């Protein structure tokens, strides 16, 4: 917008000088006393602003203050002093983790790789299965039968992480044939898929099974529940669309391709963004509950790595914070990136 002199000055014909126009005088006044206006508005409406206070305080104390603690990754870690009084140490912890060349740095890279692998597999297997389930649910015309199937598949979602992991732990427990080996070990070794030694040692003690256990238990737990949103999108499709496609000679696959898929695409995009957004935010609780020293090779993720560094006996909070910082920044870039791409590509976005 082009600003012209006449917008804020006007020529006084009698005194032959320029004066500030009345409108501009009001605008100046508002600007000068902006905070007073704000104050008056808030005072007049104080009940509304008071309502915000508990929420703001909770978020400030337990969401934003930890972010301040996170700045410890740039400081010389000294547990005696609060973060504000510690000395600035720059990027030394980051350097130590990224190019340290010692065990710590190797462990960090392993955790980073595991984080990506676990979440990438989760995306590959965990994301399409609920969509397929929803398509299958749609095939069941009888409401009663469908409810039975749905209730059965939602069931695992009602367990807490602890109960779920306890059940998994028990099902693949170590032991021999006389001391309560897990039923899954029994079945797998009975079928000859795994050797007796592997079965006796327990699958959770074997690094090559951790990823499979993690993903399969994840699908078991949430595939049914995650399918609800896709199923809701599918039943919203008007039957006339199917009829029109059938008249054009579309068989089942063609109907899927040209009717169902386009109709639920926006739902898929939204769920995909949410999923990518929480990609690195993988459930540390589940990993913590399932992993042990034998399976760090494939199971250790950045959160659990940081947890061990920063919360054990000889806590290195600076190192732990640096690891979490890198994880969180990459995670945030993924959310924002996924959201931007989705908005550009399909006019659908979260936030």
């Amino acid at each position: 917008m082009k600003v012209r002199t006449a917008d804020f000055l006007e020529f006084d014909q009698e005194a032959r000088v320029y004066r500030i126009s009345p409108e501009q005088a009001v605008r100046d006044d508002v600007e000068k006393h902006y905070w007073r206006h704000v104050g008056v508005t808030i005072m007049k409406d104080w009940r509304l602003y008071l309502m915000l206070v508990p929420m703001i305080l909770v978020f400030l104390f337990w969401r934003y203050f930890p972010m301040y603690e996170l700045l410890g990754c740039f400081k010389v870690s000294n547990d005696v002093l609060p973060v504000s009084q510690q000395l600035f140490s720059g990027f030394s912890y980051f350097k130590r983790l990224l190019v340290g060349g010692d065990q710590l740095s190797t462990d960090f890279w392993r955790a980073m790789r595991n984080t990506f692998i676990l979440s990438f597999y989760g995306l590959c297997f965990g994301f399409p299965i609920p969509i397929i389930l929803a398509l299958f649910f749609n095939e069941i015309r009888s409401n009663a039968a469908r409810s039975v199937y749905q209730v059965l598949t939602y069931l695992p979602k009602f367990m807490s992480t602890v109960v779920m992991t306890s059940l998994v732990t028990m099902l693949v427990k170590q032991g021999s044939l006389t001391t309560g080996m897990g039923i899954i070990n029994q079945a797998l070794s009975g079928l000859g898929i795994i050797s007796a030694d592997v079965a006796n040692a327990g699958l959770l003690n074997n690094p090559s099974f951790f990823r499979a256990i993690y993903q399969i238990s994840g699908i078991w737990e949430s595939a049914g529940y995650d399918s609800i949103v896709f199923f809701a999108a599918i039943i919203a499709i008007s039957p006339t669309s199917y009829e029109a496609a059938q008249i054009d000679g579309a068989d089942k696959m063609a109907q899927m391709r040209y009717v169902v898929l386009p109709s639920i695409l926006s739902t898929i995009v939204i769920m995909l963004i949410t999923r990518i957004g929480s990609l690195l935010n993988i459930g540390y609780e589940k990993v913590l509950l399932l992993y042990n020293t034998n399976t760090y090779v494939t199971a250790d993720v950045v959160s659990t790595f940081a947890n061990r560094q920063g919360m054990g006996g000889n806590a290195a909070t600076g190192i732990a914070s640096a690891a979490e910082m890198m994880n969180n920044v990459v995670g945030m870039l993924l959310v924002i990136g996924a959201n931007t791409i989705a908005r550009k590509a399909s006019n659908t976005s979260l936030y």
Partner: protein
Amino acid sequence: MKRKLEISELIFKIISYTLLTMFALCCLYPFVYAVSASISGRSAVEYGSVVLFPKDVQFDAFAQMFKDNMFWNAYSNTLFLTLYGTLWSMFTAILGAYALSKRRLLFRKFFNFFLVFTMWFSAGIVPQYLNYLATRDVFSAVGIDDDKWLVVIAMGMAAMNIILLRNAFEGVPSEIEEAAIVDGATEMQVLSTVYIPMSKSTIATVALFFAISRWNGYFWARQMISNGNEHPLQVFIRLRLEQYTDPEAIAGWNASYAADSVIYALIVCSIVPILIIYPFIQKYFAKGTNVGGVKE
């Protein structure tokens, strides 16, 4: 033409039913096995002869657990954390969401960003832990020494739930609010007599989400509650699991039931209450998955 269509329909139907049945049975099997193993005799469990149905039925594992004071203690702690935690979360969330839903609120954009940013970026476990230690000191300075109150107040704020509520409040027609104001209603009365009754189902959904996250809460409860008598059920189950799957800890086990049966009994006991109330909450559960914060 018509025939080809019918055949493809039929094939797809058969595939759907088969795979769904298999998946549903896989979902169900671990629960059935857990129930069977919890009431089977010791040798049947240890020799792995329990596959689907219980053998040498005994109820001693349950009896022993029900006699355990720690178990009931843990249950009541969980109820405490769930009840007060949900009340506190709902109190803050409803008030905050109501204020955020008002267009006249100054700095509305800033407050919304303040919430949404916590969905993009979270500090991580260790900084949160350090922060809890610091706030625990603050709490004990004002005389709240009980860790469980810190868990109640500090935990379980989810920006997503507040956004769900805010969107529900934004959907309430402003004419009704204006009518209430003309009748002389104050801000609190508008909220309690207009907004809350008009968005009952969203409120129920959000309360359910808060309650579930409280009921399931494990990690922070274990980290922050130092007194073993105040541990909730989830922590209790985990500690028992760690104890009973350690071969050394159960070396001298001489009960009439297997150590595994105790764990399975615990698992069953923690799932059953949820299964009982499940039919009543199911519709809210399904509703909540319609993504709340979506803007198109």
